């Protein structure tokens, strides 16, 4: 009997010891995670994720300077620009939708093959399959579709906002031009994506659009031929527009986005106050 109670007290003692060793709170875990070589090598001094961030001017400045994402922003911004009714966040939301569309788009690429033609209508079948049997496939496709329409809309509103604030005036003229190019690229992104489901809606909408392009003076027919990969929409068009949609146009867009954001800072930050 006494052996039994000895054993029990031993277990109890052992448990107490382990309890003492174990990190007792979230704060302890946080400290041990933050206080090692790897963590410190990832987050530069002053990062808000490092140990010992204090809410001082210096650390606030370092937080913006030492994070590649926050680094899009300057350390300080004009106070009036914070007001939601000044920008309505439209530029930022357009960019965010671009990111969201990239993420959802990459997901969709796993389940989509840009192949069409009699007997091998893989594109359309993949679309059906995506909705029917891929986990979250239907939701992600919806997000990609509505996000795309929304992005055209927010880019358009962003342009209107910038115009009414006279924010294109010197020294920001060139950035306005970059913005107009980005508007065009957004439309191209949306339009090239419109064909990919390869349903009746897709090919006839694109037929209408490309027929208009064919009326470009001098080299209209050539442009149309190159874009369609033939005289009319077919499997070649689908492959071309797929590559344009997932690779070429996003690539060009990212370059212009980089210039656009960089110039905002070079031109003295947000415009105004009015």
């Amino acid at each position, binding site marked *: 009997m006494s052996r039994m109670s000895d054993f029990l007290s031993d277990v109890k003692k052992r448990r107490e010891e382990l309890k003492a060793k174990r990190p007792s709170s979230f704060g302890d875990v946080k400290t041990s995670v933050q206080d090692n070589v790897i963590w410190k090598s990832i987050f530069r001094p002053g990062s808000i994720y490092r140990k010992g961030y204090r809410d001082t001017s210096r650390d606030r400045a370092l937080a913006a300077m030492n994070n590649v994402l926050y680094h899009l922003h300057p350390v300080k911004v004009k106070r009036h620009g914070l007001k939601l009714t000044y920008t309505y966040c439209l530029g930022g939301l357009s960019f965010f939708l671009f990111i969201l569309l990239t993420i959802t788009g990459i997901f969709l690429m796993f389940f989509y093959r840009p192949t069409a033609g009699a007997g091998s209508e893989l594109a359309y079948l993949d679309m059906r399959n995506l909705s029917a049997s891929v986990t979250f496939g239907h939701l992600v496709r919806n997000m990609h579709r509505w996000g795309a329409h929304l992005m055209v809309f927010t880019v358009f509103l962003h342009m209107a906002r910038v115009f009414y604030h006279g924010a294109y005036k010197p020294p920001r003229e060139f950035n*306005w031009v970059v913005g107009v190019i980005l508007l065009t690229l957004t439309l191209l992104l949306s339009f090239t994506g419109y064909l990919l489901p390869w*349903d009746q*809606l897709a090919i006839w909408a694109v037929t*209408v659009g490309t027929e*208009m*392009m064919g009326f470009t003076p001098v080299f209209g027919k050539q442009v149309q031929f190159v874009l369609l990969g033939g005289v009319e929409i077919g499997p070649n068009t689908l492959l071309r527009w797929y590559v344009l949609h997932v690779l070429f146009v996003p690539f060009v867009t990212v370059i212009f986005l980089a210039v656009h954001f960089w110039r905002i800072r070079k031109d003295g930050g947000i*415009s105004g106050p009015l």
Partner: protein
Amino acid sequence: MSEEVQIDQEVYDRLIAEGKSERIARAKAKAASVRKGKVAAGQELGPKSPEENQQALAAFRERSGGGAATAGAGGGAATATKEVPASRLSPEERAARVSASLGGNGNGGSIGVPASSAHTHRLLALVPPAGIQQVQSKQQDKVYTWPHLLIVEFVALLAMTAVVLVTSFFLDAPLGALANPNLTPNPSKAPWYFLGLQELLRYFHPMVAGVTIPGVGLIVLGAAAYVDKNPSAKPENRKFANMAMTFFLVMWTVFVFAGSFFRGPGFNWVWPWVDGLFFEL
């Protein structure tokens, strides 16, 4: 050890009577007392006359060997050197004197430019007045990006995610029948943002509606930043620009709406509340 310097009481009283402050009076009275002591000890006071200076110089040259005097004059040909008049020390003599006074510790007795150098000073740079930066930035009302701006942006991001998610949950993206190039749907419509142009096709030649108007439109839009020379950004100062922009935005919207909702089979005019919608996103 050091004795407290006595105050010359006579001088002190006179300065106080003149209205000098106590501090100045005390200092001057001390100086007067020191001067008196020197005179009593037979020491000379004050600056030497030019003749006495010359004598002292000659005495120094005699002491230090005399040879340096001729070597010094006319030695340096560099920019910042002057011909040394005979009445002054040459650089070599000055160097000798400095090193003697520093105890001849071997490093020339000099900091920076060597004492033996003929250069008495150095030219660092010539700066034209225009090269001096005039900083005239205005004080601006600024706040830290972190946390003020980043929090607003984060909330906007979450809100947008919510909007997209909820919309996607309740509204399905259209997926029609398999593409069939031989079966033209009626009506065939472009994506909504091109429906304004498709509407224009009803009124103009395709080259005008499909190429000229959007092409010129985009170029004019881009050029607006260079055409608009009005420096003001205030709405009350740019009524024309705002009116023109509003006009074109409204026109564009009207055409998009017309093409989207008021065009049915054959792209003919319909009333959506009578004939229904012929529109898909």
